């Protein structure tokens, strides 16, 4: 898909629903927009069926606003709460079988490079903690070992949320959940460290309580995956429904966890990725001066 596709055939403008016309006239396609511009353009997601106060929904909204080239992005999702939302997003997206997302993204990225050798196509995996760290860990790590040029974003809501509240590898130790009444017996899997060791050129942990930082992290991760190597972003967005928090308190809970040191914002950038990002920054400043 390219921004050139977003032209309504002549004669059909009048019957097109308003939201599509707004996407054409004021969408983010082909424009350099980000989290700071939210509220000034037509977003890629309008409504969604996720729970009130869902931190994952906010994270997705911020991630979508941060895509460097939404018109040339394909999102690969997997089973989970996020898959309920992705079908309604105005970006090309694929739903893969539970856990297969990084294998599907691998094939897709390679096919796109063959089909569009002169274009940059971003393939971004966005999946929950169950799909990423439990069921799909094999496919996730193998894609990193192979240095596939894809971005993997894990939405860490710390639970299998929409199947009743089973513990996941990302549930905190001791967490008592609807389907884990005795409490989890082992700590969260340290996937950022695994990602770094497995070959990711860029790794970051972030939360939607830091929206601008999240936008920057997502953008950097996608840019690095264009040229340097795989990238991984872990977005901390615990589930208010399963942890029984009032909807309005979710972001405060995230901030509290950060203050307690349970959740940490971290960023690892390989030397090659650092140099690449610095070069892009110089180019951007040069373009702005011109």
């Amino acid at each position, binding site marked *: 898909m390219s921004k050139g596709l977003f032209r309504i055939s*002549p004669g059909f403008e009048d019957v*097109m629903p308003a939201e599509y016309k707004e996407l054409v006239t004021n969408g983010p396609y082909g424009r350099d927009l980000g989290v700071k511009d939210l509220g000034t353009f037509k977003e890629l997601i309008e409504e969604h069926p996720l729970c009130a106060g869902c931190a994952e929904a906010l994270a997705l909204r911020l991630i979508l606003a941060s895509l460097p080239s939404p018109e040339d992005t394909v999102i690969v999702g997997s089973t989970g709460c996020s898959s309920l939302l992705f079908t309604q997003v105005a970006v090309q997206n694929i739903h893969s079988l539970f856990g297969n997302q990084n294998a599907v993204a691998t094939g897709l990225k390679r096919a796109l490079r063959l089909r569009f050798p002169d274009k940059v196509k971003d393939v971004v995996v966005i999946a929950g903690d169950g799909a990423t760290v439990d069921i799909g860990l094999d496919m996730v790590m193998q894609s990193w070992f192979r240095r596939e040029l894809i971005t993997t974003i894990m939405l860490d809501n710390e639970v299998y949320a929409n199947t009743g509240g089973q513990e996941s590898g990302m549930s905190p130790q001791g967490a008592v959940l609807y389907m884990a009444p005795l409490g989890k017996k082992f700590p969260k899997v340290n996937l950022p460290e695994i990602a770094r060791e497995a070959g990711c050129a860029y790794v970051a942990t972030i939360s939607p309580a830091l929206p601008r930082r999240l936008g920057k992290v997502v953008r950097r991760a996608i840019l690095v995956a264009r040229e340097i190597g795989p990238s991984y972003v872990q977005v901390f967005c615990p589930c208010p429904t399963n942890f029984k928090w009032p909807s309005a308190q979710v972001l405060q809970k995230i901030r509290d966890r950060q203050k307690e040191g349970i959740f940490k914002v971290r960023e690892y950038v390989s030397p090659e990725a650092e140099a690449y990002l610095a070069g892009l920054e110089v180019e951007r400043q040069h373009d702005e001066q011109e």
Partner: protein
Amino acid sequence: MAVSEYQVRPGPEGYLPPAAASMGVELPERGAALVEGRVVPEDDAFQAIAEKLLAARNPVFFPGPAVLWAWKDGVAEKARAVLRLMEVVGARAIPMPDYRPKYPMINPAVEINPNHPNLTIWHNRIDVGVFVGVHCHYANVALKIIRGGTDCYTIALCGEVGHEDAMITLRDVDVKKLERLTEAARALAAAGPPRTGVMPRVGTAV
């Protein structure tokens, strides 16, 4: 009913109507078309489509993404040809801009969605609906849902090999074929008032 006797007729046929293909309805070869599950010469199908559209109380075209969006050269011309046909038969358009399921639901007054096309048919009391520019897999789903839950007469103007789940389908529909269909409708309209309630004339099987 024997497989070979199955006809693709307006519903409501029930919650899960069989796929016409599973009942023995085969897609037409080049130069042929399907009318209610029977293979007929293309010109006969033109006539049947024109009769149905001119006789309809509320004929509506459902242009899909492949026609609504000028995504490659030639689409704008095809869109204009569709508009000319709509004008001749007095139909309006309700678009299917993409295939996303909408939350909490679509607005059936302004759009149709392949996941629940029956809502738009019911809401607008559409008696004849024309699919054009809808990608095959979604057209098949939508046509089956419409046949299952409504009495809408469906016509599929397909750029590929046709849709057996529509009551009438043309295949390989391009600008030239749309123009031929438009001419057939114009000639029929000039010949006299539409014959409401008359079933389409079905030609000799080929």
